[in-house]
């Protein structure tokens, strides 16, 4: 809590909770925090109810395309406090690319990676099961 207050003190003109439709009842999942005067390329995303599981794998996917393809200058995350279930996910870009772009691309690619892992895993498990059934016949 203290840590968050500190951030809020530092950053005036903070963009406050953005969430899906039905704002009052819906739980906030994603927030964007930007410093006053900073462009769209320097954003801290607050991912609620997330930890190293998504944080580290997403950071990896975003860092993997950092140099040539798009210009991500920095990508990192912190867990604000062990008793708070949220992470601050920071992205800084070069050349005025909005920070949402690498985030969106990272999420899409992580999803694609999972899809491929899932397909491969299921195919091999089915093969294994077939192989096990054969000797019994």
């Amino acid at each position: 809590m203290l840590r968050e207050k500190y951030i809020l003190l530092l950053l005036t003109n903070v963009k406050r909770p953005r969430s899906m439709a039905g704002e009052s009842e819906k739980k906030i999942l994603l927030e964007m925090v930007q410093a006053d005067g900073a462009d769209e390329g320097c954003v801290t995303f607050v991912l609620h109810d997330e930890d190293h599981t998504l944080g580290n794998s997403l950071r990896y996917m975003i860092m993997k395309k950092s140099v040539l393809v798009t210009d991500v200058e920095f990508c990192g995350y912190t867990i604000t406090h062990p008793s708070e279930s949220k992470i601050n996910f920071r992205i800084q870009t070069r050349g005025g690319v909005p920070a949402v772009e690498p985030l969106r691309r990272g999420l899409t690619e992580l999803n694609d990676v999972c899809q491929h892992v899932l397909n491969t895993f299921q195919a091999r498990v089915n093969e294994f099961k077939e192989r096990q059934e054969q000797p019994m016949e």
Partner: protein
Amino acid sequence: MAATRRNVEEIRTRVILGEFGVKNVHTTDFPGNYPGFDDTWNMPAFQRNFRVDVVHMDESSMEFDMVGVDAAIANAFRRILLAEVHTTDFPGNYPGFDDTWNMSAFQRNFRVDVVHMDESSMEFDMVGVDAAIANAFRRILLAEVPTMAIEKVFIYNNTSIVQDEVLAHRLGLVPIRADPRLFEYKNTAEGSAEEEASEIDTIQLQLKVKCSRNPRASKDSSDPRELYLNHMVYSRDITWVPIGNQADVFADCSIGPVHDDILIAQLRPGQELDITMHCVKGVGKDHAKFSPVATASYRLLPDISLLETVEGERAERLKRCFSPGVMQVEDVDGRKVARVVNSRLDTCSREVLRHSDLKNAVKLGRVRDHFIFTVESTGILPPDVLVTEAIKVLMTKCQTFLNELNSTDLG
């Protein structure tokens, strides 16, 4: 003036060991900190001042002086030497390597090999993926794949020696066979009909046991198994009480404890338990009782290579340094020669490094992107289903945040 100048010089170049502590530990010579000093980074000056003197060197150790560089940089070298186990193949880190993400290359290299699988445990290799992603799967298996577990215990009567709260805790940990995918999370938000247990989110169980004397026991017996009836309460005594249409929907999947023989309490004649329980859907990060796995872990594939031929007594000793089956001593033209046959079996104990004549003959390593996963289910779901569910959980996370991004007006 000359004195203060010397003082400043001392602060800039020396760590002072005082009687009550150490002074001037941190680097302070940043530009602008010291009037009259030009502390901006100057490459030629650095190159002029920087030097390395090798003091001592043999095949296994060396000592050298590194002069004219900041602690930040020297420490970076030290840390890298000590433990460079982190992922470093990010784009631009290694000149000449293209480390940018390449989906087709990933799909070409990625593979899964199932080594062993039965209804409660499995071992498989996942090759060609980074630790960040493999670890995400492991973490999700432990904490974010949902199961059904006893959440509410209504104790109508408990005259046993086990206290109510202890009994409730024990009951909570009993794995309940019910497919969590067929249930909804119970809505615990304020104002919702919280106390109402509905057929879509709750399983009701009952435990009703009373202990009595066995009338057919022999007079001189002292064995409680013979003297009493129902004196041991096992998980098999828990019965399912269907709510609503559950009896029809789950007719062919017997809902109840996975294991029959979990001892819940011991009773003596006259004592009884009369308990109703509600199971709800939950995840392991809320409470460990919801975790669907006994263990889910991975290790990196060991990679052992011999750098020279090791023969005779040394070969035998080398073999004994590793787990059984890793090394083999073979007979080559009457000489005993050591050979690596299966480095997968090794526990990576580093015993070999204690033998000064052997340590330079082998190279011990682990393959950075080869994960040997072991998943042991609690028996609620088969292990392969758990892994697929874990992967789907990570995909759901991605999609949730993508939707969230698309529904905001930015981007």
